[in-house]
Structures are given as C-alpha cells and as structure tokens.
C-alpha cells in the first residue's frame, strides 16, 4: 500500500525530519486537490489544517471593499501554506485561493497540535521550520514595503 511518507520525506519543508516524526505526520495527513479558483481557506475561519504544496499555485489574498480581492503573496510547489494553526486563537488571517489547479497534502492541525503537545521534540522541530518560513516572509514583506522599484529608490 502506498503511503504519503515518501512524498512528505522529499518535500523541502520536511526534508531531514526524523523518520519517527515523519510517521506521526503521516498519521495526520491526507491528499487534497483544489481546482482553479477554489478557496483553500477564508479569513476568519478556524485554522484547522495546514498544507504541504506539491503542485500548482495558491494566492494569499486580502479582500478590501473598494479594490476587491488583492493577492499579497503566492506560494507553490515546495512551499508550505498556513501557520495560523500554530497560534491561538487558530483563525486564518487571510484568504487562500488556488490560482492554478493545485495538489497538496493537508495536515490536520488539531491532530498535529495534540501530537506536538505530547512530543515536544516534534513540536520544537516543526516550530524551527515554521520560524524560518515566518522570518523569510517577514523579510520579503519588509522589502515589498520599501518599494525598491519606485522612482526614489
């Protein structure tokens, strides 16, 4: 029987993870697909899943009354989507919508939170990986705010 273990093991976000921890993740994982235009999650909803992206592209969007849905970031193959599941009160802060047909592995966040609470080594390992991503996105956001391609740059 095929399991998701080899796919998770090869994903850049989880590469090098202890096989024991990988087994735990497999127990919380399932394959998902999103058609173009489908919402992965919406702002305000409970953040009970995060996604290991295998193929396609997801736009992280914010909806404004006058400008409609504005994409503020895109993630794709090799990326991970969603960290609000880690931080109480576990609600999504943005919308996420597939801009291309997308395949991903969904990880049940309630399951993951329970596992991380009972195995702090796993929790710390995941936290380190998420902290790196949060740091990269924060840097990128700061750079975007600089408006480096503007006339005064």
């Amino acid at each position, binding site marked *: 029987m095929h399991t998701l273990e080899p796919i998770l093991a090869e994903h*850049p976000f989880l590469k090098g993870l202890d096989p024991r921890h990988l087994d735990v993740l497999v127990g919380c994982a399932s394959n998902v697909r999103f058609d173009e235009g489908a919402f992965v999650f919406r702002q305000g909803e409970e953040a009970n899943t995060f996604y290991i992206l295998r193929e396609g*592209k997801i*736009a992280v969007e914010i909806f404004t009354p006058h*400008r*409609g*849905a*504005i*994409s*503020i*970031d*895109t993630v*794709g*193959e*090799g990326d991970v989507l969603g960290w609000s599941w880690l931080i109480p009160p576990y609600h999504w802060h943005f919308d996420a919508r597939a*801009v291309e047909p997308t395949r991903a592995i969904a990880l049940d966040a309630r399951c993951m939170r329970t596992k991380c609470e009972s195995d702090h080594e796993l929790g710390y390992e995941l936290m380190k990986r998420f902290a790196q991503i949060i740091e990269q996105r924060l840097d*990128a956001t700061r*750079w*975007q705010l*600089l*408006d*480096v*391609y*503007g*006339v005064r*740059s």
Partner: protein
Amino acid sequence: MFPDLFKVRQVRRETDDTFTLELGPVNGRGPFTFAAGQFNMLYVRGIGEVPISISGDPGQPGSLVHTTRAVGAVTNAMRALKKGDMIGVRGPFGIGWPVQEAEGRDVVVVAGGIGLAPLRPAICQLLARRDRVGKLVLLYGTRTPADILFRKELEAWRARLDFEVYVTVDRATAGWHGNVGVVTKLIPKAPFDPGRTLAMVCGPEIMMRFTALELEKRGVARQRIYLSMERNMKCGIGLCGHCQFGPGFICKDGPVYRYDAVKGLVSLREV
C-alpha cells in the same frame, strides 16, 4: 569627446513612466557596435546629458535602442522627442555582461524593475547562441503588473521551450494571476544547476544585494555572479570622478562587476 548626432526613429512608451528610444545614425556613420551591458551618454540639446544603458540587440547594430524611466529634466525631454528629432550620443562606455563566459553554463538572469533594460542585450545574445549555453532562466521582479517592462517580448520569451521565464510583482492588482512577492523568492525553485551557473543581476542595489545572497545560498559561486552598478556617470572615461566606486570608476571599470570584487562595497553606507 563630442557627441555623434543620431536621429530619433521612434519613441515607444513601455509603461506609465518608462519609454524606449530607437535611434538611427546620420552623417554616413556606420553601424553602432556595442557589447551587452554597456551604456551611452545621451545629450538633449540645451538641456543636458545623462548616462543610459543600451537595451537593443547587439546583433542589430543598425538601430541604437535605449530604454529608461522619465525621471528628470533630460529624460522627460527625451520622452517628448518626436520621430526625426536629433539627439547626441557619446559611447559606448564601460564593461558589459560576460556573455562569452556564459558558454557551456546554465545562465540565470535576475532583473528588477527597469533593470531588465540593460540585461535585454545579453538575453538577445544568449538566445542568438542558444545552443552554446545550458539552461537559460529569467527571473523578473517588478512593482505592479502595470510596470512590467517589454511585456510582449516577455510573453514571446516565455512561449519558447528553451527559455524559462518567471515574473513576480511586489504588489498585485485585481486580475493578476501571476506570482506575487519579491524576486528572490523565485531563486530557490528556479530550474538551474547552481554548480555550473553564471548569474547576471541588475536592479536597485538593495535588490541586487539580496539576490546575490540568495544565489550564494543556492550554491552559485560568488565569482560567477555579476552585478550592474549605477552611479552618476558624467565623463564616461574615468576622468571626472563622479562615478567613483571604491578604488575605481563605474563608467570605466563597470558598470558590470563580478560580485566577489564588489561584495564589500555594495553593503557600505557610503562609497
């Protein structure tokens, strides 16, 4: 050095604030040969002279092409030129992109904003000798979808099966379905072999600094990363000192530098 006279053949609007100036020689002057990455000093009579990178195809020296942003008195006057107007040209100046050295290697071209213009001649040359380089990748980041330079050409390049083109914008607008985020985000997943890659980078200095760091992180050797620097070039021949950059002058020793030669300078507050 006196400017040669050239006649304006066309002024083409690229984006809201950028335009392309296509010039042809007069007075029986022959083709204008240049190396990809070099720049000219363009003189608008009665207004002034500014350094502008050549954005044309070196394989078509009969037409001299520059693309720039209308940002000051001279470039605004240039944008207002009409077909048949005259303009003065001194050049070409400086050291260009290492197109010869790219042979046998993967090439990744990273452009930010108007920085795509000085890279366009190198891309044209690499495409003309496509069989002599490995993978060819363009990563282009710009402000908004409306600021995408050479949009039609980018679409044509992207349609080729032997050229990987990725575009990202810092700020999306409604209807944009492409990538959003800074250009460095494209580097970790771009399809090139870092061990055999040569990188050419042009854009705002802060973008080039982060790009070089990300390329190094991916495994591209520092000595195979090239950056195009920009300062206030005046004389073009290393005499006036306006474009001094460390111990040298950008007009003469650059504008294209190997990253390992300028790494210490690009992060200094004042050079």
